[in-house]
């Protein structure tokens, strides 16, 4: 890719689900778009479980996220059908809902506390006894002591979404640049004018949108104050395949197992995603034996028939975590530079909303709605400064 020819309106750096969605949405909004990533659709996007969980992901202290996550969930059905129509690829959106279950009495008390909190926020959650849980999902262990029904928390097959987005971008006329971006090209007026690639060439751009997950330190030229304060939180998910007549839950099952969170996300094709570990570290992206052991131990405590499934895949990814667990999306103080990232545990859920908002931004519409509270300026007081959503107006 040389610096000849007309500059695209938008160059997106980073092809995780956030970058891919921004590229596709911007193209649909009429912009000319290029996306730079040596392997789009991989990374944390590939490792994720695909839960669309605005309710079960909300915990004490995360009240400012609730409106954002609910709005993001609302954006999914039309996004999924649009993507399926554009590509002919199914993306596996399932709306059976989620069951939260407790493995022992201490877990039950902890779940009941969170359930009450979520209900106090007006979220649709109903407490259930152990028998009621098993009546809804016969695959659950008889030792389950109780839980909660969360009918609004759904799932999508994140790997199908990633593949569909790559296909939709390619078919829709987004220029896919399979190269690593090394830094920003800054014009004489201090504005972003393009992207430098690792092969030494440059790609001019009207607007540069940087969406780099946890790899911001490998991309030069962004003013330090505009770099999202992101730390990597490593997570491992497993993919299993139900064999023969082994029982499989229809809903997503999220359990608290002796204090640790475990989930099983059943796909329509018999695949069951089991997750997820959380370690406060970055690379290496290795899957340890202990991670696999812990995930399977907890999963089979919730659903004993896991023992009969085939283990087909184990993938590690890095969640981009911010100080307040909220995303960082919006224009920066540098003209022509937009950042989008910090989606932490909610990258799949948030992407359609972020894609639509950034596509609007690059075509001249300011970000509105709940996402407006999650701009890059809110950390200006220092790492984790208190200018967070909910305190900004």
């Amino acid at each position: 890719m040389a610096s000849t020819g007309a500059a695209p309106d938008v160059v997106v750096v980073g092809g995780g689900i956030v970058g891919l969605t921004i590229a596709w949405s911007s193209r649909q909004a009429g912009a000319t778009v290029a996306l730079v990533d040596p392997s789009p659709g991989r990374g944390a996007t590939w490792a994720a479980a695909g839960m669309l969980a605005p309710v079960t992901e909300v915990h004490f202290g995360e009240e400012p996220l609730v409106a954002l996550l609910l709005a993001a969930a609302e954006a999914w059905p039309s996004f999924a059908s649009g993507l399926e129509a554009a590509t002919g690829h199914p993306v596996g959106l399932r709306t059976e809902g989620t069951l939260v279950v407790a493995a022992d009495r201490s877990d039950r008390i902890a779940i009941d506390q969170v359930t009450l909190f979520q209900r106090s926020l007006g979220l649709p959650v109903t407490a259930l006894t152990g028998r009621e849980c098993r009546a809804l999902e016969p695959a659950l262990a008889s030792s389950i002591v109780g839980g909660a029904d969360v009918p609004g928390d759904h799932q999508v097959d994140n790997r199908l979404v990633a593949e569909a987005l790559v296909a939709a971008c390619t078919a829709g006329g987004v220029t896919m640049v399979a190269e690593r971006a090394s830094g920003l090209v800054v014009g004489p007026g201090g504005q972003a004018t393009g992207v430098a690639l690792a092969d030494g060439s440059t790609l001019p751009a009207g607007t540069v949108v940087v969406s780099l997950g946890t790899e911001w330190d490998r991309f030069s030229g962004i003013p330090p104050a505009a770099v999202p304060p992101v730390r990597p939180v490593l997570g491992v998910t497993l993919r299993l395949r139900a064999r023969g007549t082994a029982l499989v839950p229809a809903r997503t099952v999220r359990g608290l197992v002796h204090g640790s969170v475990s989930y099983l996300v059943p796909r329509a094709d018999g695949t069951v995603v089991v997750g997820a570990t959380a370690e406060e570290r970055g690379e290496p992206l290795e899957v340890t034996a202990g991670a696999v052991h812990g995930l399977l131990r907890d999963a089979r405590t919730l659903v004993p028939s896991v023992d009969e499934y085939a283990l087909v895949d184990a993938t590690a990814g890095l969640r981009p975590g911010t100080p307040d667990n909220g995303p960082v999306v919006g224009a920066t103080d540098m003209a022509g530079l937009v950042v989008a990232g910090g989606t932490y545990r909610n990258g799949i859920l948030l992407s359609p909303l972020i894609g639509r908002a950034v596509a609007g931004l690059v075509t001249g519409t300011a970000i509105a709605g709940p996402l407006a509270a999650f701009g890059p300026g809110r950390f200006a007081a220092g790492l984790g400064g208190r200018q967070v959503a909910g305190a900004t107006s």
Partner: protein
Amino acid sequence: MTTTAPRGTAPAAPAPTAGTRERPDDPFVIAGEELPSRLILGTGGMRSLDELRGALVASGTSMATVAVRRVGPGGPGGLLALLDELGIRVLPNTAGCGTAAEALLTARLAREAFGTSWVKVEVIADDDTLLPDAIELIDAATALVDEGFTVLAYTNDDPILASRLEQAGCAAVMPLGAPIGTGLGIRNPHNIELITSRISVPVILDAGIGTASDACLAMELGCAGVLAASAVTRAQHPALMARALADAVSGGRAAARAGRIPRRHLAEASSPDAGRVTPLDPPPGGGTVR
């Protein structure tokens, strides 16, 4: 403001008052170094860095433990950057180690990574109780002291084991109130009191704290400090609980120094009997007796 529930709905946690910092006439000293606060915080289990920041600030703590095995190099936005920014000393721990050899290796890594020779040594016997393995612990503490570490030893509430750790050269002993993460309080207050009365290095109550009264009791039993982790990070409002624990530690320390009154079986009036009004005396002013 477009979100449904602003952060401000949580009860505010005011900044620590002067009272949560210890008094100049009662310094908290470990291995010759004075720490401004008798409350030490653990950093595991945080829900977000912002929440941890709020708790650290509200606690007024001057030292926080960090699990060497859990924390990678601190990048921007990471835990270590936060502690550095707040001027809070890092106390590396050997959480997750099951043998003396493992703890030794982890402590050496910590010395390189964090640039401190202080270490909280934990050698855990099993995953169900997370109780210390006494035999491995003594071996680990002895070897670490020999290598020049300043060793703070996480231990059972066993007075004899605590004495052995002091004899091994530990700078502080840290008996548990109850197993890690249980929030069950101090299950054997008598043993904790035995430990504090028989040991000359600082005794820091570690593990089992569930709420402020547990921390206060620890100090009343003669502990020099308290370490809390889950009690804060898993509370509904961590900053407020951190503040409560700081106040409790301060109050308990003052009570221990003030000296409690002896317990008595029967009541003892605090006012003298002499000069009391009897029903036969006419009330002043000639009114009727009620």
